[in-house]
């Protein structure tokens, strides 16, 4: 009545189909759970990034406030006192003409230097005039030292970034230039600001002693990179011993471009 071979085949087929269906269901569960896991992982990562950004933001705000305080102190207090000393020296100029002329000149230079430092530290220059004039001012300052031949090149049509982004970008450039002054032993510094339709590039090239980026452990570069990341950009450094350094910062314009310069 029942063919045993047929029945055995039937058992095998039923077993295989059931096993495959149930296994597929478990695979599907694992797949969906993996998706949940990835979403959870991404959420954790974005929380970590947001936390990091908040910390950096706080750090930048504290630094800016310190700069403002020092700048105000130099301008209002030290600068005023030096100006007063200069006036007093002018009033006694008749008796020791030559010596006093030299002293008055030195104090005058000191006052100018302090004003420049105050201006550099203050965020007013960048907030009032924008990124390009602020960089031009920095170039002037470097040229005044007579230690470097500094050139500045502007390509494309300059656009204003949102205030905070411009300030952060400017502080990165300042830090890079300070590194050139302190560590590079360079004689030539080239700054290029290139505005493209979608992004802007800031490149700082020097002919100094260079360094091996992989062997560098300091916080400076990490700081610059973290700040660049904060304004949706990135910062890259190419350098090798005795062959100078090239630092490039690329920042997208789409998000923050507000008005044409």
């Amino acid at each position, binding site marked *: 009545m029942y063919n*045993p071979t047929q*029945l055995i085949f039937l058992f095998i087929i*039923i*077993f295989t189909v*059931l096993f495959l269906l*149930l296994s597929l269901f478990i695979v599907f569960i694992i797949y969906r759970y993996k998706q949940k896991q990835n979403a959870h992982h991404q959420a954790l990562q974005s929380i970590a990034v947001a936390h990091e950004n908040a910390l950096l933001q706080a750090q930048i705000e504290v630094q800016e406030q310190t700069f403002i305080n020092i700048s105000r102190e130099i301008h209002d207090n030290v600068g005023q006192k030096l100006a007063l000393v200069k006036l007093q020296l002018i009033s006694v100029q008749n008796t020791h003409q030559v010596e006093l002329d030299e002293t008055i000149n030195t104090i005058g230079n000191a006052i100018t230097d302090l004003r420049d430092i105050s201006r550099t530290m203050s965020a007013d220059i960048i907030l009032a005039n924008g990124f390009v004039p602020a960089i031009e001012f920095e170039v002037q300052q470097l040229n005044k030292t007579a230690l470097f031949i500094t050139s500045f090149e502007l390509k494309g049509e300059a656009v204003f970034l949102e205030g905070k982004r411009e300030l952060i970008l400017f502080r990165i450039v300042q830090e890079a230039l300070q590194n050139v002054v302190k560590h590079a032993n360079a004689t030539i510094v080239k700054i290029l600001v290139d505005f493209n339709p979608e992004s802007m590039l800031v490149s700082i090239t020097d002919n100094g002693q260079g360094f091996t980026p992989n062997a560098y452990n300091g916080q400076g570069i990490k700081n610059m990179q973290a700040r660049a990341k904060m304004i949706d950009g990135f910062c890259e450094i190419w350098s090798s011993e005795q062959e100078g350094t090239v630092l490039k910062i690329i920042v997208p314009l789409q998000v923050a471009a507000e008005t044409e310069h």
Partner: protein
Amino acid sequence: MVYIIVQLIIILLFVCQFFVSIRAAKKKNCPRSVKYFYLYPIVGIIVGFFLILNFLFHAISSELRINILTLSLLFHFNFLSTILYKETGSKPFLKYLFIFFTIILIRLVISNIILKGANSYAFANAVLFIFSAFYFYQLFNNSNIVNLSKDPLFILCAGIFLGTGITIPFTYIQDYLILIKVQENLLFLFGAFSSLGYLIMNIFFLKSMICITRHN
């Protein structure tokens, strides 16, 4: 012969499970719900030997065989259901559902002794199948994220899901085969197929216990 081989493999799996679950119970990370898991293979081994003896010598009376199978079924059902109940979040409605199912199962088991049907076995498997499916549902509602391939409880529930899912339809087919009075050797061959689901389930249980012992 196939039936004997399958039963021996299952007994071997139970022996391995017993030793691994003893080791797992000593681990600090062992979940409380599977702390006494080593009791499960003990009952499994006893039942496995009874089944082989019954096949070889027809030495056990059919009443005794049914009683042993019934008791082991009740034990396994309660044991695995308790694990699943705890793993599905010990929700009050699950507790009532569990009590309700146990009462129905006892009722079915009692009538089974008289009727010799497969209802209770299929019912127990169906309840375990539902519980394990609920565990998967819970998995997505839980905020904790675990590595599924190394999570002993997921492997345990996947084993129950696969094993019971295969066993349910086979139990009814077996009942039908008895009804149409197929040859006994064919019935045992079918029994071997039916036991494959059980075998797969126990492979998963073993893997689950190994996961606990390997976890630091």
